[in-house]
């Protein structure tokens, strides 16, 4: 090899390099076990100290009173306290019914937004305006607007519905906007060469969408869909603004009557009992999917884009 000349591609006179970090090596093995034990003790100690402090007693009495939680949970008709437990069943029921309607309607909106050609242009415009509005305006605002506004209009058959119907409508209205965008992202995530492969086998556009694009699209956005479902489940609490006897409204009444807010705690626990397993499940699906992609991708062409 001649000394570095003007045309050489490789520079042989590099300065000496260092491959070592200047900071101390990370704790390993037994030292690591000891460190994690110590930090656990410190955190538990801090929590105990907080709970034992004088102001914590008031906190415990006002928020964590088990007896008050029980009263709020089962309700007390004599005192006019509604059951948080029963109310929560309404939250659950409402979220499931709304979610099913949302999943169907959102697919239609997504499809409408993805149409091409001048004939469907106005529909596309309406779909875009709707998703912008539905996602851009706070759910609680729409809830107040519809829930208090519509009954005041005195429209026969519409203004006389129960608040639960208005609430369901508002949740479906807001969440369909979100979910349609999730669907759209999913459909866009399917490579166009999948569509070309399907079409070149003679499959129609509709069959291609149903059998090739949507199954892949939904699998790609399943975590996002589950996320939105958890969100919808929580947002059923906003229905309390319309005075519907769901968990949060019931807890509010219990708090007002008993001057104790442990009812909110039990309501929170009920929501957590649903949303935590749901988010854990979402995480598991995401991890499984990631592993599948990493493990399975033996074929070099899987990542190759079309020319």
């Amino acid at each position: 090899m001649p000394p570095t000349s003007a045309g050489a591609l490789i520079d042989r006179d590099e300065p000496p390099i260092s491959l070592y970090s200047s900071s101390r090596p990370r704790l390993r093995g037994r030292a690591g076990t000891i460190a994690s034990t110590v930090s656990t003790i410190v955190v538990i100690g801090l929590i105990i100290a907080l709970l034992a402090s004088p102001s914590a007693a008031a906190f415990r009495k006002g928020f964590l009173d088990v007896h008050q939680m029980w009263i709020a949970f089962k309700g007390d008709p004599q005192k006019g306290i509604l059951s948080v437990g029963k109310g929560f069943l309404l939250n659950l029921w409402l979220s499931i019914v709304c979610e099913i309607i949302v999943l169907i309607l959102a697919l239609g909106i997504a499809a409408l937004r993805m149409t091409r050609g001048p004939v469907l242009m106005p529909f596309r415009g309406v779909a875009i305006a709707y998703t912008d509005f539905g996602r851009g305006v706070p759910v609680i605002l729409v809830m107040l607007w519809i829930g208090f506004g519509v009954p005041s209009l005195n429209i026969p058959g519409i203004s006389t519905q129960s608040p639960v119907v208005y609430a369901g409508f508002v949740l479906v209205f807001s969440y369909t906007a979100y979910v349609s965008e999730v669907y759209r992202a999913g459909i866009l995530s399917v490579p166009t060469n999948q569509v070309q492969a399907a079409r070149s086998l003679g499959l129609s556009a509709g069959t291609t969408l149903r059998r090739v694009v949507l199954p892949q699209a939904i699998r790609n956005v399943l975590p996002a869909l589950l996320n939105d479902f958890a969100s919808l489940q929580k947002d059923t609490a906003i229905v309390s603004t319309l005075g519907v006897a769901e968990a949060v409204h019931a807890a509010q009444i219990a708090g007002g009557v008993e001057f104790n807010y442990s009812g909110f705690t039990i309501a929170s626990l009920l929501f957590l009992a649903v949303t935590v397993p749901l988010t854990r499940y979402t995480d598991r699906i995401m991890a499984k999917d990631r592993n599948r992609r990493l493990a399975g991708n033996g074929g070099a062409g899987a990542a190759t884009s079309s020319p």
Partner: protein
Amino acid sequence: MTALSSNSGATEAEAEVVLSLQGVHKRFGDLEVLKGIDLTVRSREVVCLIGSSGSGKSTLLRTCNLLEPIDAGTIELLGHDLGHERIDPDAVRRHIGMVFQSYNLFPHLSVLDNVTLAPRRVLKRSKAAAELEATELLARIGLAEKAADFPDRLSGGQQQRVAIVRALAMGPSILLLDEITSALDPELVAEVLGLVEELAQQGMTMVLATHEMGFAKEVADTVCFLEEGRIIESGPPGKIFEDPDDPATRRFLQRIIEAGRL
């Protein structure tokens, strides 16, 4: 039922014209990709399109099954003008098999379902009949035991062979193969080319865009050299590879030889 293709043997001399292109032009915006292509493919014929990337090989194949609309010229499949206003593209594609560089198997379907999807949904075959036929085809290429696997469990070569079988399951009159070995690891190329060669021997009509010059030399009946959207020269492989007339063809082959690919 061991034959992979169901082509009936036409006589050598008067083989039916399967596909013919006359004066086909295609432009993407300002870029004219095909500048007047004339090509005739007869039954049982194997045509190889060679030329550097960007010469229009892929686009040419994609216009034939209407994945790309053309701007001028005519394309005829079995005597039918594909430019006719009442042509149904789905019906056209039923008779043209296409295999892509990136395999494009459906990742959410098993190997068997990949092969049976179109026969079931397009040809309305029963599930049992479609699966029986697909299993036979997969057995023919030695992948019967992979039928229940998902595509990502297969090697690239296996995936590409399944993609070929998927196209064959529709009983096409012609197969278009678009650089089907370009995405493969070198050691997997042979199994795919072997299958194509077998199909050629069984009389499948095929048009291949390929960079595998050795393969083209061996298997092609006709080789077309494309450059900048034109077929510069075409003829039997012996002529094109050994004694090309056009200086552009000679320059191209010289580069291939220098790269050690022929």
